[in-house]
């Protein structure tokens, strides 16, 4: 599970990296978009071929080389991927993403010291790079569990211990997120960076690290007070492809407001007829469970931020955001991924998952 989380952080880097292409001529940008489309479809060999061709014309191009590194990673050509990203860090030491992805690969190889070094470089070049902070936190947690294994002579690589450790990581992801503050990243090196990774985000406070004992199928969302981060500002591909993005944002705001107001009927109305219940249970059972949770006594305060919309078609999109939830007894932040579909002119939730 953690591995895929890291890979998602790589994928996120594609999004930011895509932003680079905003500065490149349109033709090249389109090639790059094609490549990442091929990647998304899992056609790695074709994507790689296209990238190689692209790089013939622009051998120094950071964006192309970055994509090549990603494709190689996806194809499990780890050594080559490491070499691509390493050379990128040498040629473009001011870019944090190659360092970050190097770190993810090292982490997969359990070379946590190397991973840590790479992330520290990413942060040194770009102190506000939230992904690197997140990954670094993850690396520390993994190094910690290695040390704990040694200390307590347990083996977290066996299944049962793994679950324990995965739970710790969940807590970690829920408890502290480094501040991504664009304003303190204004060093000359980073100022030229085309990627301001994110608009200034509200500081997420570390939550009480309280274990969440019950699996929450659907996390509550959105406090209207919290600013909802707009979809990443420079993701040309996305905004061009769909006007659904802002509609989806509004829908989710409303969905979350219903949740916050404990309006069960309203809340449930945002789920599509063919909504896939998390445990595969019957719709009625799921609804009754949600209703029970929503109506528990005490205030709920929820917000979402960092909404990313990836359209798959005109009527279907994958949505990703950070969800902050606070009730009397629980305070969490987590990554939420939803598949939204447009039915009868309304965007509705068809799938809802945590952390993937």
């Amino acid at each position, binding site marked *: 599970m953690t591995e895929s989380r890291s890979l998602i952080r790589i994928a996120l880097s594609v999004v930011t990296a895509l932003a680079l292409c905003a500065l490149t001529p349109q033709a090249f940008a389109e090639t790059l978009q094609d490549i990442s489309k091929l990647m998304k479809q899992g056609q790695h060999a074709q994507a790689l071929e296209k990238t190689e061709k692209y790089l013939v014309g622009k051998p120094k191009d950071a964006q192309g080389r970055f994509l090549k590194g990603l494709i190689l990673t996806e194809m499990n050509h780890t050594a080559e991927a490491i070499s691509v990203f390493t050379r990128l860090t040498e040629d473009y030491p001011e870019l944090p993403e190659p360092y970050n992805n190097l770190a993810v690969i090292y982490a997969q190889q359990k070379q946590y010291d190397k991973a840590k070094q790479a992330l520290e470089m990413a942060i040194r070049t770009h102190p506000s790079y939230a992904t690197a902070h997140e990954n670094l936190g993850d690396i520390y947690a993994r190094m910690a569990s290695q040390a704990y294994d*040694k*200390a*307590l002579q347990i083996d977290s690589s066996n299944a049962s211990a793994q679950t*324990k*450790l995965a739970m710790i990581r969940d807590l*970690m992801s829920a408890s*502290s997120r480094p501040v991504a503050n664009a304003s303190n990243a204004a060093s000359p090196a980073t100022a030229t960076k085309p990627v301001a990774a994110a608009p200034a985000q509200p500081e997420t406070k570390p939550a009480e690290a309280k274990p969440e004992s019950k699996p929450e199928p659907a996390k509550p969302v959105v406090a209207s007070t919290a600013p909802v981060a707009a979809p990443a500002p420079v993701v040309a591909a996305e905004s061009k492809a769909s006007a659904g993005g802002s509609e989806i944002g509004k829908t989710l705001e409303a969905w979350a407001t219903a949740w916050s107001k404990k309006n069960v009927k309203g809340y449930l109305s945002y789920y599509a007829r063919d909504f896939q219940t998390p445990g595969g249970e019957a719709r009625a059972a799921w609804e009754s469970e949600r209703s029970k949770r929503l109506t528990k006594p005490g205030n709920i305060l929820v917000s979402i931020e960092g909404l990313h919309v990836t359209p798959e078609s005109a009527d279907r999109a994958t949505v990703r955001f950070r969800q902050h939830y606070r009730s009397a007894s629980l305070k969490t932040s987590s990554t939420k991924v939803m598949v939204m579909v447009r039915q009868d002119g309304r965007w509705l939730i068809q799938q809802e998952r945590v952390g993937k």
Partner: protein
Amino acid sequence: MRMTRRLHLAAALIAGLLIGVAAAAVDSNAARYSDSGPEPILARVFEQIEQNRLDIALKEVESLVKAYPNFHLANLIKGDLLLARSRPIQAFGNIANAPKDKLADLREEAIARLKAYREKPPADYVPRYLLQMRADQNFAIVVDTQKSRLYLYQNEKGTPRFVADYYISHGKLGTDKVREGDKKTPIGVYHVTGSLPRQKLGDFYGSGAFPISYPNEWDKRNGRNGHGIWLHGTPSDTFSRPPKASDGCVVLANQDLDALSKNLQIGLTPVIISNSIEWLSLDDWQAERSALNKQIEQWRSDWESLNVDRYLNHYSKKFYSDGQNFEQWSARKHQVGSGKSWIKLATNNISMLRNPGKEDMVVVTFDQDYRSNNLSNVMKKRQYWQKEDGQWKIMYEGAG
């Protein structure tokens, strides 16, 4: 935000852990402490944590883990310090569903090690137990189970001189062994009786084992049984075990056992195990020692004097030895005494080792050279002297 988290950590790690540990700076008077072993760095790690310098603390603990890769405690602290970088941590050992007993054990070990490091024995004091070593006893071992510490002393022309001290584990269920299998460590005066090399042992015993003389004469007289109390090492994947971990043995880290073993003389090196060492200034130690020496000398000359009653006056009414009580012993001495026209007695190589505990008792061992008109013999003799109403009396006497 970061600051709060750090304070949180310091509180979590330090709270309770250092309670009862005099945090006072190390007494310069006690600077003779040997700085081998992990304690100096471990103490620095906790100092840095107390001062919220977690980055330095992590560096220190990493060097500790590098030096002692199987040091579980250091790994645990390392885990905490790493985890503290990504989330607030709540306690000592922040791993969900961690075995609670293991965490408690490591916590105990941390406390024991820090205490022993910070509360070093005063420089001009010696363990009361080492009243007198014989000239060829090069070293003596004194164990403090409450401190989880073993102290090695060298015999420097009759005066015990501190050499080194080591962290140790003792019985799971504590001390004052009475029965076989009670998982307790005996308290008393013993000596090393043998050496079992690593090759003859399972990995569990680490780099070697040194059996000691439990049960001794006094233990047997008091009905204590069991056997196989050893000083031994640790398994290859374990640098040290918790303070209370063994079935009664005294367990040292392998490197410590190796260092110690160079100094051990089989059949000779005393191993005195106490709950809590009593320390004496050299002056007081000298006074105790000469007072007892005087008594022993009196006993010797009273025996030579042929006055059996004066001689018997040195024996307790509770005397008991090899099946004889005081009356039987007395009758036999009177009978033997009647046939004597002269006795010459020499006591050589006297060692006097005080038994830990409330009983004011000293184990005296010497080479006895006995000559008389009708019988002569040379033997190693052992006596247990105990104070009764302010007078030293012999409780037990037999071959040593």
